[in-house]
């Protein structure tokens, strides 16, 4: 029972990463009908930008001789990195995807793969193959609740993730840009007739998705402080699985499926030998998709006709 609760805590943290990354996949899909396969690498870039910002802020504080608290550096790092990484997303949309908007979807998909490889190898060329260790900005404090151990970092990671998701939810439900995104997910060809500029809506969507991926990258660095240029690949693919499992284009579905994936993986590793983790976990996902091919919240609607 104790281990069960402990695993739930771990799964919440693990699922947070998937959920945050899956949201970016899902948002872009819902408005442009394409999966941005570079998204996992944007997560990696976000983590590296976070590393740069955190290191820079710490150096700045040391230089000025100011005793800046670690949590402040952490919060600033997240905000600044989300902001900066969003421009990576905007750039990718502009250079990689916009010229291919009318192209077959397969071409757009391989564009994403290529951009991903460019980001990985570009990072490798720029910073070398050595792994970086993400600065430990806050000391780990462990709380014992009953017989379950929870660290302040875990609480922080889950709380920040949930807040970001809630913020995204408000944005999509309450703002006119969010409304345009919802409309786009239903019928992307009719949206320009409303006077909405796709060339503004698409970069905004990439910006938000990339910002969320950056947040995930920093939170990941906080929990697993080793960065390498290929860190986004497996995590990105798994988050992509979550986006599909949630239902293509469903924001709520992506978040829930991200957490579900975290739970399935953690519990598979608990019950079976940990080398079996992904084998078991993804067999389960495959089974779920067999019975729900559109995912949890995916619509089988066919409104995406040519106008």
């Amino acid at each position, binding site marked *: 029972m104790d281990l069960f609760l402990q695993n739930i805590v771990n799964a919440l943290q693990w699922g947070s990463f998937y959920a945050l990354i899956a949201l970016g996949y899902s948002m872009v899909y819902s408005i442009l009908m394409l999966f941005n396969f570079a998204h996992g690498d944007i997560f990696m870039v976000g983590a590296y930008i976070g590393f740069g910002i955190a290191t820079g802020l710490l150096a700045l504080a040391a230089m000025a001789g100011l005793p800046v608290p670690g949590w402040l550096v952490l919060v600033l790092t997240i905000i600044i990195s989300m902001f900066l990484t969003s421009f990576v997303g905007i750039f990718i949309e502009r250079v990689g995807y916009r010229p291919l908007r009318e192209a077959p979807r397969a071409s757009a998909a391989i564009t994403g793969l290529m951009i991903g490889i460019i980001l990985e190898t570009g990072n490798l060329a720029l910073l070398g193959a050595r792994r970086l260790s993400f600065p430990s900005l806050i000391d780990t404090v462990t709380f014992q609740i009953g017989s379950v151990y929870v660290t302040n970092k875990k609480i922080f990671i889950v709380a920040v993730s949930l807040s970001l998701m809630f913020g995204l939810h408000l944005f999509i439900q309450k703002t006119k840009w969010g*409304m345009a995104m919802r409309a786009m997910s*239903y019928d992307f060809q009719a949206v320009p*007739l*409303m006077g909405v500029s796709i*060339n503004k809506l698409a970069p905004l969507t990439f910006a938000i998705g990339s910002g969320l991926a950056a947040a995930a990258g920093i939170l990941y660095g906080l929990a697993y402080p080793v960065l390498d240029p290929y860190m986004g690949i497996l995590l990105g693919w798994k988050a992509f699985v979550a986006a599909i499992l949630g239902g293509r284009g469903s924001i709520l579905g992506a978040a829930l499926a991200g957490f579900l994936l975290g739970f399935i993986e953690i519990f598979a590793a608990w019950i079976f030998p940990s080398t079996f983790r992904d084998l078991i976990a993804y067999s389960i996902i495959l089974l779920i998709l067999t019975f729900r091919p559109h995912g949890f919240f995916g619509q089988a609607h066919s409104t995406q006709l040519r106008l």
Partner: protein
Amino acid sequence: MQLVIRNLQVSYDKIKVLHGIDFTIAKGEIVTIIGANGAGKSTTLKAISRLIPADKGSVMEFEGKDLLTYQPDRVVSELGISHVPEGRRLFGNLTVLENLQLATFARKDREQIKKDMEQVFAIFPRLKERLTQASGTLSGGEQQMLAVGRAYMSGHKIMLLDEPSMGLAPLLMLSMFDALREINKEGTTILLVEQNARLALKFAQRGYVIENGRLVLEGPSADLLDNPDVKKAYLGG
């Protein structure tokens, strides 16, 4: 002339579907283009809305501005050309109110938006009763009302209507055209494309007949209604 179309040519995958059509519309007019399925009616409207590219050599001007330099969203937001697409294309996941609001996305004239909204509710009181309902759950007639109301909210210098009668029962059809006439009286030019030629010609002042991507006949509606060729081909004898 408010809208001038000269030598409009459109191709889909290199196959020409519009072979250079010419027509003009004056401000405040109601003009219809009638023709069979696949003759190029919808393509003409989509070209004006810039949803599909026009081939080289085409000329399209709206109030003296070169339409070919406009992106589709700016055709709506800057020129006030609204388009009710074939099959209505409502955002079924948004409420009635949200559909109307979304149409004002790029508009900044808050006061006028309010007035336009009142106008839409005056013409289609049913919409006001359905404001918070998801538009996907509306009846066919209500959906058409919303499609027209939404287009009105996006801008109403001219309204391009693509088969608004489609799928409507005869009575609803007539009241829809009454509503359109009311919108026209308020100053909106109307370009209507229809398969239901009799209905369209009774509604419009002038008409064009399109066949295989070419305009083959034009004239006042009354003349076209009397034209033996039109009668034979489009009015059922």
